[in-house]
């Protein structure tokens, strides 16, 4: 199949970007979206042009490195029949002759480094603020010493599947990072190991989130709709619930 790509090209963080149109020929429908971009880059390299920079790593949908906005939806969720990362989106989701827009995540907290690559360190700093459990050294506790409610364990595991790709921020009309923050909050809030720091963690992480310049959540739901790991919107409900109860605790005061 042959497709027309309109790709965001931006030389560096300081320069102005613009959409550039490329024709990509002989694309196999079994190619992933990133392999199609590889094909384009091979072509550009042969022609002596600068290849399109994009983030990628595992290419099996578990690392959270890749991610671009395709035809106006993060990871091309609008073209995919299932929740997906960009690397797991295949060209069979597009028709022959399609015109495809490819843009980087756009958010003030995710500045563009080059072309489709954005700096997502803001997420790292939110995690550094409180997305961990402190564990004393010493002998390992007995297995099953802490019984965990099955429902809570499932919820923790579901929330922990967040790969931190940033699609939620990219899709949010407010460019809020609440789904990401709430996934980590919910993951740790459901487990016994997360309890001692629960009240302090939420205050620190929400403060870090706001300091990074992310917008506020207005419960629109675009984030959960594009999430490749299908983190549900209700983790934000859990975050709000924990935040309100933490305001009545002396943690961090």
């Amino acid at each position, binding site marked *: 199949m042959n497709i027309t790509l*309109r790709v*965001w090209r931006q030389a560096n963080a300081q320069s102005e970007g613009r*959409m550039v149109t490329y024709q990509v020929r002989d694309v196999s429908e079994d190619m992933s979206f990133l392999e199609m971009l590889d094909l384009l880059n091979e072509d550009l390299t042969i022609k002596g042009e600068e290849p399109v920079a994009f983030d990628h790593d595992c290419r099996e949908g578990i690392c959270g490195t890749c991610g671009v*906005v395709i*035809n*106006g*939806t993060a990871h091309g*969720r*609008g073209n995919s029949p299932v929740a997906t990362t960009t690397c797991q989106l295949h060209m069979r989701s597009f028709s022959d002759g399609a015109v495809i*827009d490819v*843009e980087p995540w*756009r*958010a*003030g*907290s995710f*500045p563009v480094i080059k072309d489709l690559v954005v700096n997502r360190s803001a997420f790292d700093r939110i995690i550094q603020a409180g997305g961990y459990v402190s564990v004393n050294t010493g002998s390992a506790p007995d297995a099953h010493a802490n019984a965990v409610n099955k429902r809570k364990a499932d919820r923790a595991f579901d929330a922990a599947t967040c790969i931190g790709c940033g699609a939620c921020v990219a*899709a949010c*009309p*407010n*460019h*809020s990072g609440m789904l990401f923050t709430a996934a980590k909050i919910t993951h740790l809030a459901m487990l016994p190991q997360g309890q001692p720091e629960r009240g302090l963690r939420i205050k620190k992480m929400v403060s870090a989130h706001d300091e990074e*310049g*992310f*917008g*506020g*959540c*207005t*419960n*629109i*739901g*675009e984030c*959960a*709709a*594009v999430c490749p790991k299908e983190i*549900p*919107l*209700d983790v*934000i*409900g*859990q975050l*709000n*619930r*924990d*935040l*309100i109860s933490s305001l009545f605790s002396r943690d961090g005061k």
Partner: protein
Amino acid sequence: MAVTGLLLIAFLLMHMFGNFKMFLGEEAFNHYAGWLKGETPDGGILYPILPAGAFIWVFRSVLVLAVILHIYSAVTLWMRAKAATPSAYKARKALAQTYSARTMRWGGVILAGVLIFHLAQFTVHSALTAGSFGATYAHSPYKMFVGEFQQWWMVVIYAVWMLAVAMHLRHGFWSAFATLGANTSPKAFRVLNACAWAIAILLYIGFIFAPVAVLVGWIH
């Protein structure tokens, strides 16, 4: 945002219920209107704890404060969203957002604008379009209600305005409960959203009922 919004929804429910007094006749409606303002012989609400006519001002102060705080929160969120948006997408497709959710901000501005007209019309009586409160309506809130809504275009304006209000509430009601931590499961989402729809539809029908009844001549 959530707390002030829910307070205003509670007020709207009360306001709608009060409007049903229109169906009980002029005396009942005017007595109710006077009682709210402490103009009835019994001194109105909370008399004699408060002087006659004082409660309405406490009540109005709370409402005005709620509206101001609601707008303040909305503007803060709006500014944060603007600051977090360096440049717009060339192509953008919404997957989940409803029309109500998308129009919360500009819709809110329009609601506030019509609210000022509504207060000027029925509370301050400076923007009455079919008569004057003192002369034509003889100081009767009932006659004023009937006189204003006998104009078909006034009913249309309120029908459109209430549609905007109902849409604002449909997203606002569920969103308020989500902010307060009630949305913690897919089932909670369905229940909250169903309640939001129910409140929005109830308020729309409830508010538009009496003006339409005036228009078709049921109330006259």
